[in-house]
Every structure is written in C-alpha cells, then in structure tokens.
C-alpha cells in the first residue's frame, strides 16, 4: 500500500477518533480540566490566608527590668520591616519577682497565653528558654532583637533620621530577567509535562476501547496497521492542540482582564513570545509523539483495562523521571545535565523548551527538532511493530522477560 493511501487511511481513522472525542461530553471536562487545579489553588490559598490571618504570632515573655524590655521592644519595632508576611514573635513584659526559675516555669506553664518561650537575664546576660529549635526562627529573632537593642543602647540615642531612600523602578535587570526566564522555563516544562501525562493516559484508554469494541479487526482488514497507529496518534494530537489553543486563549484573556498591565506582565522568554509559543506547540507535538508512541506500543501489550492501569503506573513514574531530568538543567542551559537532557530523546523536548526560555539562539532548536524527528520515526516504527504483533497476534507473541522464563 502506497504512502498516500496510508495517509488517507490514517486520516479516516484520525477523523473518527477526533470527532468521537471532541464532540463528546467528556471533552468539555477535558477542556475544563486545568480549571480544577486553579480553583483548588484559589480555594486552598484563600483558606490558607484565612488561617494565616487568624494565627497570632507566638509570644515570648521577657523577665527583665522595664528599661531592658523597652529596649528590646524598640529593637523589635525597628526590625519589623524585615519580618515580611510572617510577623516576628511578640514580646510581653514580666517584671522580675526574685525567683527567676519559678517565674520562668510559671510563665511557660501558663495555659491562658500561647507563650512559646521566656527571655530572662536582661540585656546583660540574656537567656532564652522555650520549646523551640535551637537554630529555629524564634531563637534567631530573639538574638536579633538583643543585638539590635544592645547596638541602640551603645549608640545612646536612635540613629539620626536622614532623608528616606529614593526608589526608582526599572522594567528589568539581568537578575530579574534571569529569574523571570527561569520561571518561564519551568512553566513551559510543566505545561508540556502535564499535557503529555494527560494524553498518554487517554491514548491507552482509547486503545482498550478499540480492543474491547473489536473494531480493530475491521480496521486492520481495511487499512495498514501503520495507518491505524498514526491515525490514533494524530487524532489525539489534534485534540490536544485544540485544548492548548483554548487554554492559552483563556489564560491570555484572564491575564489581560485581571492582571494590571495586561499581557505585558508576563516575563518574556529569551526567544520572544511568538517563537516561544510556536516552540511549545512543536515540542509538545514531538514529546507527545515520542511518549505516545512508546505508550501505544506498550499499551498494546495489555488486554484488559486492569492491565492498562497496571502499566500506567510505571509509565507515569518514567515520565516523572524524564521531567526531573529535564528540570535539572533549568537556570543553566549549558550545564552537562541540561545537554544530556537535551540529547536523550524522551527528555529532549522538555529540556529544549526550557532553553528557549533562557537562551536566544535558535539553531539548537533546529538541530534538536531534527534529532527528535529522527527518534519519532524510529519509535513509531518500533511501536507500530509491537502494536501489530500484540493487537493482531501476528508473529510470535510478545512476552515480558519473566514470562519468557516461565514459558521455557
């Protein structure tokens, strides 16, 4: 059968799979899929903020003369801009009663106040007692307060109030750009990873549907097995590209509407947004064809849904490892890890999309795409042979190594 005939047959199968998926109710769920994690993030973020808002910072009692306490409180106040979102521990004054040991124990065991520790000894011989980590945040904060209080006391007066520091904001700097591009690199990788993991599972399910419907026999009698294989792969690819377009458009619209500054708030990738988006699509297609081809070949070995589920686990783990390999090089695209990830065919699309975010050169992408295309052809050929062997029981049956052993 000639290549155009194979392509025609693949188109017929792809068209069927595509329409069956896109015009099904479940496709709406697929499109809405990315909304769920966002909604969850918003929901849990809101709950987290509420919890944070309700949470009072822990208290440390200071057994010291009033002057020492006031010096510590002033030091705390002076340092408070450094505290960020999580405020410093609060301080409360406990005038010394004479028996420090007993007073300390009483303060630590007082159920009425959420007290985390006690500082005694004043500024001369400060000593902290409490149920905290020795090098933890509370101890570090208290050390800082004591040091600052001593410094202020040594200066005998508050430092002179000069003119406040002037602030000029720039759009970018080398540091901010590097950070932004790193974020874009991680984001691009995450998008590719989530999409391929999602689609690989769907591809396996489709294969099982085909097997359980017994349609595969009708297909195989009419068209070459390569056409079935390609048709299924490309139908899913087309479906996922629709998803990507919808999600990208929705995301861009959301940013344009809600983010001040609109789309310009997005950190620019090194190759620029248009090229980067095009590369995301191309690398996604490559990644999908590489991993999808492997999955389809492996999935064809399964005869039941249960077997598919069993196979899905190691396959998903393998994807995570591949993703991990590619993420190592983010931030340093010329490192040996990044180069290895770019050369290893299955991680190459992930590594290269990160490179596109961080480096301007386009020629590595041309080389990488040629390399990936070569592997796509090789893997599709191998997977197609596996598919034919197992789905149609043509030729010797595939056996796992342990099955081969037991069969002897």
């Amino acid at each position, binding site marked *: *059968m000639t290549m155009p005939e194979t392509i*025609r*047959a693949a188109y*017929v*199968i792809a*068209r*069927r799979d595509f329409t*069956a998926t896109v015009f*099904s109710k479940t496709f709406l769920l697929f499109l809405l899929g990315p909304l769920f994690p966002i909604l969850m993030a918003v929901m849990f973020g809101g709950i987290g903020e509420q919890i944070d808002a309700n949470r009072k910072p822990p208290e440390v009692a200071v057994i010291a003369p009033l002057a020492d306490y006031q010096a510590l409180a002033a030091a705390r106040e002076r340092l408070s801009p450094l505290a960020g979102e999580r405020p410093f521990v609060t301080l409360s004054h406990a005038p010394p009663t004479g028996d420090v040991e007993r007073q300390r124990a009483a303060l630590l065991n007082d159920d009425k106040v959420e007290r985390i520790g006690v500082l005694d000894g004043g500024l001369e011989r400060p000593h902290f007692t409490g149920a905290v980590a020795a090098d933890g945040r509370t101890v570090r904060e208290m050390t800082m307060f004591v040091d600052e209080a001593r410094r202020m006391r040594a200066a005998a007066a508050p430092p002179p109030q000069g003119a406040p520091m002037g602030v000029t904001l720039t759009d970018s700097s080398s540091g901010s750009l590097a950070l932004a591009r790193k974020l874009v690199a991680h984001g691009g990788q995450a998008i590719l990873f989530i999409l391929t993991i999602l689609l690989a599972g769907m591809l396996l399910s489709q294969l099982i549907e085909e097997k359980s*419907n*017994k*349609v*595969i*026999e*009708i*297909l*195989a*009698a*009419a*068209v*070459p097995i390569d056409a079935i294989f390609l048709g299924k792969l490309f139908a899913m690819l087309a479906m996922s590209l629709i998803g990507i377009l919808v999600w990208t458009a929705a995301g861009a619209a959301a940013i344009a509407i809600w983010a001040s500054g609109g789309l310009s708030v997005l950190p620019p990738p090194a190759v620029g947004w248009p090229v980067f988006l095009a590369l995301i699509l191309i690398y996604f297609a490559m990644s999908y064809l590489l991993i999808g081809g492997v999955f389809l070949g492996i999935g064809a070995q399964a005869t039941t849904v249960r077997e598919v589920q069993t196979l899905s686990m190691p396959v998903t783990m393998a994807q995570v490892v591949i993703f991990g390999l590619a993420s190592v090089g983010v931030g340093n695209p010329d490192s040996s890890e990044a180069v290895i990830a770019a050369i290893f065919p299955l991680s190459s699309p992930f590594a290269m999309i990160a490179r596109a975010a961080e480096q301007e050169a386009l020629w590595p992408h041309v080389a990488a795409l040629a390399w990936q295309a070569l592997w796509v052809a090789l893997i599709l050929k191998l997977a197609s042979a596996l598919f034919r062997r197992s789905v*149609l*029981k*043509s*030729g*010797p*049956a595939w056996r796992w190594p342990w099955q081969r052993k037991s069969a002897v």
Partner: protein
Amino acid sequence: MGESRIAAEAHELVKTFDGTRAVDGVSLSIPAGSISGILGPNGAGKTTTLRMLLGIIDPTSGTRSLLGHERPLEAAREVGYLPEERGLYPAMTVVEAIAFMGALRGLPIAAGRRRAVELLDGRGFGDWAKRPIRTLSKGMAQTVQLLGTIVHKPRLIVLDEPFAGLDAINQEKLEALIRDEAAAGTTVVFSTHVIAHAERLCERVAIIAEGRVAFEGAVDEARNRLRPIVHLRTRADDGPWRSALPATAPRIAGEWRFELPEGGPEPLLKALIDGEAGIETLSIERPGLHDAFIAIAGAAAARAMGQPVAGEEAV
C-alpha cells in the same frame, strides 16, 4: 487490474502461534463470482485462514493472492469483510458507522452516508439511520455491520461465521442478501460451522479440519464422493435376498440402511423381489453435504461441530 477468474487463492499457507500450527498448509482457490463456503469445526483454522487471505495477519509461510494482489491490503477497496467478532463504535449513529466502514475502504464519507441511507431504506430500516449503535439489539447491530461490509460495493465479500447469533428470520434475510450480491456478480466467501447454510448457498466448499484442507471443490463433487444411501423396510426378516445387502448393513428400528451397491438400483431391486423380501418401503437418498463432511473431515470433526453422526444418538 484485469478481471481474474480466481478471486482469492492460498497456496500452502501455514500459521504458527506460540509453536502451535493453527493452519497447516492450506491451499484453496475461490473462483470469481461464486459463493464459496469454508467449513470446519471451531478451532479448525477457518478464521486464521481468512485473516491471512485478507492480510490482517501474515502467514508463517506460504503465499496468498486477493483479487490478483499478492499484498492483500492493496485490494482492500474492493473487498468487504465481516469478522467473526463483530465490532462497532457504540456512540456512532448507524449511518455514520456504515459510512465509516466505507471510508476505510476508500469510499468518500459523503457518498458513504448517501449509500448507507439507500441501503437502510432498501431494507426497511430507514428509521435506524440516526440511532446510536449502543441502542441497537445484537441482531440489528449485526445487520448494520453487514451493510457496512457492502456499502462500498466490493467485488469480493468475506464473511466469517455470518450466521452466528442471528435468529431464523435474520438468517433467512442474510441468505437472501448473499444470493443478491452473488447475482450482481460479487464473489462471496463465508466460513461456517453450520453445514445447512453452506449446502443451501454454496457452489463450492472447502472443508478444513485441524488446520488442513480435507476437501475443496463443488458441493456436488463432495456429495458424489459418497454412494447413495438405501433405506429399506421388508416384511421378511431373512431370506436369499439378504445377499444383495452389504453384510455389515445395520437395521435400525426395522429399517435397513446401507450404501447403494456398485451395480445400482436395478440389480438390488431384482434381488429383493426374486428373494421375496416383501418390500414395504424403499428409498434411495442422495447423500447431503453433512454426510460428505463427516466422511471427509471425519466423525471427530463432525462431533466437534456439534453435528450428529450416523449411528450415534443425538445428545
């Protein structure tokens, strides 16, 4: 491709699965324009032979040709195939399912839809057109698949156990459809383990048992391999006339049953009359395909097919 007198041909086809020979050197040829049957018990190798002929699987050894093509898929546009395990997409409508099967065989989808409607209307099933496959009964779904098999007007139709799962009325309709297609010049090949269908429809049969072709030829040729069977009832239990009957002829429920002797009916009749057998009834029955099948494929194969074997009580 010029018109060939042979629609499909297999030469010494062998198929081995995991060291087991499912098909062991099958050779057969299907004349163009004929209705041919492939008979054999379950597991005889019928389906595997058909799958190899159609190019769904490759033979371990041997050659095949389909409508003159050594690579069967090259003839796919001119072939219709109904597999033993029926399969349709449950969510598809009837028209789409038929059109899709046509599209697989090269029929443009729009033409396929039109033709599907014609086929459905022509059989009084017009109201099925928009129904999803999942809402159809098994018999209806099978009919839809059959229409999908012929939607692209193939030159060769291959049906694997087409009567399985159909009730008597639908079996009759299917027989009519096969006759109609053959009358239009289409070659029809079907496998079955129900010999009655083959006997009613086929001009030629191939009998496959244990992966081998035990017989291939015209139905009459198969039947002529056996001598006619004489059924005789006599008033006398014994006498000189007995010498005209084979010594091993059994008498079951008062009826003698034996193969017509070489000399034919006249010497037998003369011997019976002269020997005063007192003929009550005498009939000479031409053997059916069932008897020929048993004789050719062996009683074991017949039993495997659930067919009654002479001298054994039906269970």
